[in-house]
């Protein structure tokens, strides 16, 4: 009998499990096979808040809280997980090409500013951008950009490894290559049916990405989402040339330049396309023409879990106390919150009131 079982060993499940391990005695994380569609392993690696929460101040505040927590969280997780995660938070940019993109970005920023006292996000002129990137030229179409002082980036694979190692070091148990077929409730406890065994738990957290819906439904939790494919292009390693990450181009600590990300509605198809490679490369070169001489060496895709308003869904079953579900597409940014604030509340400390705003019930409210 475990105090809590977390279903899902991606960046969301691992962060929650890691956080729970410091509050509860026995936590089990059940992870699937390597062949599962793992969004956590196709990730771009941004720790990002500058574009989040337009029209939803609670999500803006949550993202802000998460990026602020990331500073101390990255130190904590490197210490407890014993793995450097290559986090840097120098601030981050969204480049605008042409006047239309510049105006659209200004509109987003003023809407965000209307929802929060000090957003720490501002528009920069082309000239100011040039000063931020002394080692590389900006394309002629770059009209300006948005800069958030709090944004940053991290190596998402190292983060995942560190979270899992930190969880194990804190006394957590991991079962890998398992699949949960169903969850039964009896006598206030949860019985998880695996292929050849049954696991008992006082609490259960469903954080299994796109596999979450079928597990959560019988526990009275509805999780609306669609799948969205994102493709990423990666270049050969080059010397340090991009001191700040941007929403679609960032240079990793290892020197490769990652270029993302498409947003495609193609169902479960995880293929890559030449069209996407061409358009990703073309935009990157419009921003930084010098990248035209750099070779692309890899391309991959992943599937995002996209809720109707893009914000995460945190669900607590009212019918079966002790059952929770969490799905989102910003698992890296929100990892700091998942490991701290959310895990603490799932463990039973602190009020759930703030989290309640992220229940899927927000989608049931009809506009008056």
């Amino acid at each position, binding site marked *: 009998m475990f105090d809590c079982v977390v279903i899902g060993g991606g960046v969301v499940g691992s962060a929650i499990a890691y956080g729970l391990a410091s509050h509860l005695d026995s936590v089990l994380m059940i992870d699937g096979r390597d062949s599962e569609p793992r969004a956590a392993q196709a990730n771009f690696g941004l720790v990002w808040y500058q574009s989040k929460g337009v029209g939803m101040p609670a999500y803006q505040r949550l993202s802000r809280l998460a990026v602020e927590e990331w500073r101390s969280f990255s130190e904590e997780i490197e210490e407890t997980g014993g793995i450097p995660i290559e986090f840097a938070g120098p601030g981050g940019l969204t480049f605008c090409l042409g006047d239309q993109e510049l105006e659209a970005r200004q509109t987003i920023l003023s809407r965000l500013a209307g929802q929060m006292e000090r957003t720490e996000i501002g528009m920069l002129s082309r000239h100011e951008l040039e000063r931020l990137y002394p080692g*590389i030229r900006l394309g002629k179409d770059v009209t300006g950009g948005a800069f958030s002082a709090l944004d940053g980036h991290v190596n998402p694979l190292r983060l995942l490894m560190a979270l899992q190692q930190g969880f194990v070091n804190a006394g957590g148990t991991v079962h890998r290559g398992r699949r949960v077929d169903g969850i039964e409730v009896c006598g206030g406890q949860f019985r998880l049916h695996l292929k050849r065994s049954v696991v008992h738990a006082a609490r259960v957290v469903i954080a299994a990405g796109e596999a979450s819906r079928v597990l959560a439904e019988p526990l009275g939790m509805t999780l609306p989402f669609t799948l969205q494919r994102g493709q990423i292009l990666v270049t050969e390693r080059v*010397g340090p*040339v991009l001191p700040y990450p941007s929403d679609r181009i960032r240079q990793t600590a290892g*020197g490769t330049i990652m270029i993302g990300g498409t947003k495609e509605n193609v169902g479960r198809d995880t293929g890559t396309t030449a069209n996407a490679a061409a358009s990703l490369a073309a935009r990157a070169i419009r921003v930084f023409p*010098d990248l035209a001489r*750099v070779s692309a060496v890899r391309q991959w895709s992943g599937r995002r879990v996209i809720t109707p308003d893009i914000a995460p869904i945190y669900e607590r079953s009212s019918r079966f106390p002790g059952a929770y579900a969490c799905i989102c597409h910003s698992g890296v940014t929100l990892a700091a919150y998942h490991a701290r604030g959310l895990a603490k509340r799932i463990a039973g400390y602190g009020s759930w009131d703030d989290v309640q705003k992220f229940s899927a019930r927000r989608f049931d409210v009809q506009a008056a």
Partner: protein
Amino acid sequence: MFRLLEDDRGRMESTVTIEIDGYPVIARIGETVASALLREGASWSRTTPVSGARRAPYCMMGVCFECLMLVEGEGLVRACQTPVRDGLKVERQMGPRKVGPSC
């Protein structure tokens, strides 16, 4: 370390001169930059951007990427897939590539 099997039969008119890091290297028409490099005393092609260790042509068929070299006008390419031509300028790639206006 390596030499042509038919060294003594090579005729002058079937050779070209390429430049590796500024030094002239005689190569045969039809061979690749990597095979010409392998006959040199210093037959390494680059140092890695990760550890700085030297790398040399290995698979000679385009799959291992150990022989990446900077070829004038073409960028960082696999030397084993690049045929020689007279006057071709090739440089060893030292660590990560430099990107910027001057490159």
